[in-house]
C-alpha cells in the first residue's frame, strides 16, 4: 500500500516515525508530510515531504495515496478532513481514506478530549482495550456510535524487543517533563531531593532525561528552558554532584535502553521502560492528578513514593508492573501494524 502520514509537533513526528518503520517492515510504502523536515537522525529511513498539514490536505500528492494517517491534534483534525473533502470534490476525485488516533497513551478526560476531535475519520486507531472501552462509553447514544476503530497496540512508543548488555555502572533515568510538575517551586524541590539522592548514592548515576525538546527553537540554550523542568534547575546549580547528569532529549531511546531503572511522574516513556523490563517507579508523591496524566498510571502497580525507593538499590527490588494493566494499555497487541494495514486495504477497495 502507498500510505502517507501527516503530523506536525514533536510528539506526532516521533509517533509517526515509529509507525512508518512498522508499516514499511510489512511492505507498505510510507511518506511523511510534515511542515518542517525532521533531523536526519530521526527520519533517515522515511521519505519526507515538507508541507504544512492543511496544504497537504489539498495536495495532489495526497490524492494519489491509498490512505493517509492524520496525526494532528485539536481543531486541526476537523479542518484537515474538511479541506481534504473539499479539495477532492473540486478535483473530481474520491477522498483518500483517512485514519487517525491518539498519538499518546491517553485515558480519561484527556482521551475523551482527544477522541472528540477525531470523530468522523474513516478509522480511529486505538492502542488497547482500555481506550476501546472509553470510546464505546463516550459515543454511546450519539450519532457517532458506529465510528470505525481498530486496536493497534502501543504504536506511538518504541516497544519492540531490545538487546541489553549489562554494564557495571548503575544508572537511574529520571524522566524530566518540561511542564510537570507545573510549578518552578515544585520542580526545584524535586531537583533538590534528587541532588541529595545522588550524593547519598555515589555508586549510582542519576541521569535527568528530558522526554521532549525543552525548547523547539533553541534547545541547546539553557536560557530558553522552562523553569518547570529539572534541566533548568540543574543548569542553575553551580556545583551539581558529578553523578547527577543531564541528558539530551534526542538521546532518550538510547539512554532508556542503557538505564538500570527509571523514575518519573507521568512520562509516556515510562510505559516503554516497563515493556523493556526496567524497574520503574511512578512517583506517587503527587497523587493521581488529571493534569499530570496521572489516571493513565492508575492500576499500574508501579506507583511508589520517592522515599520508598531509597537507597536507590531498592529500585532493583521493585515488583513488576501489573501485566494485565499493561496489556489493557495496548501491550497485548503485538500485530498492530498488520491490523492497520488489513483495515486500510478494506477501506481502499
Amino acid at each position, binding site marked *: 500500500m502507498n500510505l502517507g502520514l501527516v503530523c506536525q509537533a514533536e510528539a506526532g513526528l516521533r509517533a509517526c516515525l515509529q509507525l512508518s518503520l512498522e508499516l514499511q517492515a510489512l511492505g507498505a510504502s510510507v511518506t511523511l508530510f510534515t511542515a518542517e523536515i525532521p533531523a536526519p537522525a530521526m527520519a533517515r529511513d522515511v521519505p519526507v515531504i515538507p508541507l504544512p498539514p492543511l496544504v497537504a490536505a489539498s495536495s495532489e500528492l495526497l490524492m494519489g495515496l491509498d490512505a493517509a494517517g492524520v496525526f494532528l491534534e485539536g481543531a486541526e483534525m476537523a479542518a484537515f478532513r474538511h479541506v481534504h473533502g473539499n479539495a477532492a470534490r473540486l478535483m473530481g476525485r474520491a477522498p483518500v481514506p483517512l485514519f487517525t488516533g491518539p498519538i499518546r497513551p491517553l*485515558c*480519561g*478526560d484527556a482521551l475523551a478530549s482527544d477522541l472528540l476531535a477525531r470523530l468522523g475519520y474513516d478509522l480511529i486507531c486505538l492502542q488497547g482495550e*482500555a481506550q476501546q*472501552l*472509553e470510546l464505546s*462509553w463516550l459515543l*454511546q447514544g450519539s450519532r457517532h456510535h458506529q465510528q470505525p476503530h481498530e486496536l493497534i497496540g502501543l504504536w506511538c512508543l518504541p516497544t519492540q524487543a531490545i538487546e541489553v548488555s549489562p554494564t557495571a555502572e548503575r544508572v537511574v533515568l529520571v524522566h524530566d517533563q518540561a511542564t510537570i510538575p507545573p510549578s518552578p517551586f515544585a520542580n526545584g524541590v524535586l531537583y533538590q531531593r534528587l541532588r541529595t539522592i545522588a550524593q547519598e548514592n555515589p555508586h549510582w548515576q542519576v541521569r535527568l532525561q528530558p522526554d521532549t525538546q525543552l525548547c523547539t527553537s533553541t534547545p541547546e540554550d539553557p536560557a530558553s528552558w522552562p523553569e518547570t523542568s529539572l534541566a533548568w534547575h540543574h543548569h542553575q546549580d553551580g556545583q551539581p554532584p558529578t553523578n547527577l547528569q543531564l541528558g539530551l532529549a534526542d538521546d532518550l531511546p538510547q539512554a532508556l535502553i542503557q538505564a538500570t531503572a527509571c523514575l518519573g511522574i507521568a512520562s509516556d516513556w515510562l510505559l516503554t521502560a516497563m515493556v523493556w523490563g526496567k524497574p520503574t517507579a511512578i512517583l506517587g508523591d503527587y*497523587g*493521581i*492528578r*488529571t493534569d499530570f496524566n*496521572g*489516571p493513565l498510571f*492508575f*492500576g499500574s*502497580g508501579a506507583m511508589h513514593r520517592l522515599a520508598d525507593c531509597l537507597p536507590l538499590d531498592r529500585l532493583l527490588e521493585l515488583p513488576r508492573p*501489573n501485566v*494485565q*494493566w499493561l496489556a*489493557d494499555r495496548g501491550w497485548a497487541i503485538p500485530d498492530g501494524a498488520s491490523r492497520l494495514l488489513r483495515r486500510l486495504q478494506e477501506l481502499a477497495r
Partner: protein
Amino acid sequence: MSLRLLLIADSDSQLLACQALARSSEDHAVEISVNAIPRPGTPAAVLAALREIGPVWGLSLPQLLRDQRLEQFDAIGVYLTGSKLAEFRSSYHSTRKPLGGARLPLFCGFNGVVLERFEEAIAWRLGYDLICLNGPRDQARLAMLLRHTPFSAQRSVVWGAIASKPPARPLPPIGPGAWCLPNRWSCPLPQRSGVDWCGSWPAWPAGHPTGSC
C-alpha cells in the same frame, strides 16, 4: 426499625447534597443527622433548611471523631472534598483501632454530575465501604478504572444524580430507583445489572428499607 445515618459535610455545595439526600429519603424509615463542619461563609439558610430535616451538629473533624454519639448510627456518609475524604476515612479507622476495630460502614458520593476528573475523584474515595455514583456511565468508568487492580472489589451503587435534583418539585415515577430514592425521584436507570446495585452493603442492619431495589 429505622436506619440512622450521619452525614458529614463542610462546603455549602456538599451540605446541599446532604439536604438532597435527606429529602429524598423522607419516605423511607431513615433518620438523618448532619454534621456541618464549621466553615466561614456557610449560608445560614442552608443550615436552617437542614435543621428542618433532622439534628444538625457543628463539630470539627477531631471533635466529631471523639464524640461518643457516633456509635448511635448505622452508617456515616461523608461529603467532603478529595483529600479530606481520604483523611476522614484514615482518621476514623485509626480512632476505631483501640476500640477493637469495630467500625461503622462509611459511604461517600458526589455532590453533582461528574463532568471531568472522575478518575482523580475516585482515587480519593477508594476504600470507602460504598461509593455512590450518579449513573451507569460512572459505574462503567469505575469498573474500567479498577479492573485488574487490588480495588476491583470496591463496592458501588448507582443512586442517580440525586444531588443535582431540585428539592421541591415532585417528578413522576420513571423506572426503578436506587436504594434511597423514593419513586417520585427515580431516575431513568436501566434494569439493575452488572455491578452492585443495593445488595452490596456490608453488615446492613436487618430490616433496612430497600426501596425499589
